């Protein structure tokens, strides 16, 4: 199992549809301050089900929608699509490729899709649960949050291990 591609559109600073194709190895993202690197990391956490607006550095969920700039109008929708390679058949679905996506409208309504068809977040989480994908607490380390595990109370630290168990 590995991630084939991530497509963002209207998500945070990505006004235009942008696709990153991945290889199974090591991908490194570089660029100036404020260019959008951590926004890509946020897109991963978001499409895998992140519900906390603070974890996405906003105050309400619509903060993830492109807010406009002096050169461009604000958009009404943010959408992220993740394509997962399943040629090894680790995820119990007959497909060699699985597509999950999430969209949010200015109204705050979120919509998840699996293979293009609307579904609940729970459906995605159940599908991915045996593959190890989607356990974001210890597999996605956001900028400035590395030391959360040290600063956490002992009961909270347990959760990092519980999630991986």
């Amino acid at each position, binding site marked *: *199992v*590995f*991630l084939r591609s991530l497509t963002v559109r209207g998500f*945070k*600073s*990505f*006004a*235009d549809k942008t696709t*990153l*194709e*991945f*290889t*199974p*190895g*090591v*991908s*490194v*993202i*570089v*660029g*100036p301050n*404020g*260019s*959008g*690197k*951590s*926004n*890509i*990391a946020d897109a*991963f956490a978001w499409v895998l089900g992140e519900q906390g607006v603070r974890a996405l550095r906003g105050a309400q969920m619509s903060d993830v929608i*492109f807010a*406009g*700039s*002096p*050169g*461009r109008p604000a958009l009404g929708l943010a959408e992220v699509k993740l394509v997962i390679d399943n040629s090894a058949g*680790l995820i119990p679905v007959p497909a060699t490729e699985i597509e999950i996506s999430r969209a949010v409208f200015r109204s705050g309504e979120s919509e998840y899709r699996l293979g293009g068809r609307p579904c609940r977040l729970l459906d995605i989480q159940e599908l991915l649960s045996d*593959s*190890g*994908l989607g356990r974001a607490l*210890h*597999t*996605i*380390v*956001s*900028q*400035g949050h*590395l*030391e959360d*595990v*040290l600063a956490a109370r*002992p*009961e909270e*630290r*347990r959760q*990092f*291990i*519980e999630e*991986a*168990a």
Partner: protein
Amino acid sequence: MEELYASAFRDVATEFSGLFAELFPGGEGRLVLTDPDDPLGSGVDVEARPGRKRVKRLTLLSGGERSLAALAFLFAIFRARPSPFYLMDEVEAALDDVNLQRFLEVMKTFAERSQMLIVTHQKRTMEMADVLYGVSMGKDGASKVISQRLGAEVRIG
């Protein structure tokens, strides 16, 4: 479920001590249950003693030592219960050259089995890349992904 967590804790604790010794030569790190009588309900304490020191209080560790101790904890979970994918955003910013090297060596062992996505400003971390993405902010205030170079080109030195 109980057994699942108890065995995960044991494996992570074992890996943590090993990784701590790798990242802090001469040091000693341990994961300890706050309430050993109730392993399933208990919290987890981190003991971290860098080499040549006696101090174990986490708050007295330096900035770089705290980063390294946190990495040892996460890496211990990665080793004990591997995932297919990891994403790390500027986790090595506080490390000096020697610790950066130790960090990269451990990261390379994970890259053999899992897909890694790394955001960084450090040149030596960039050298790990099979694929390099350059992100830039356009004049219109929208982000663009401007380039994608494959392995052979990127390996520096």
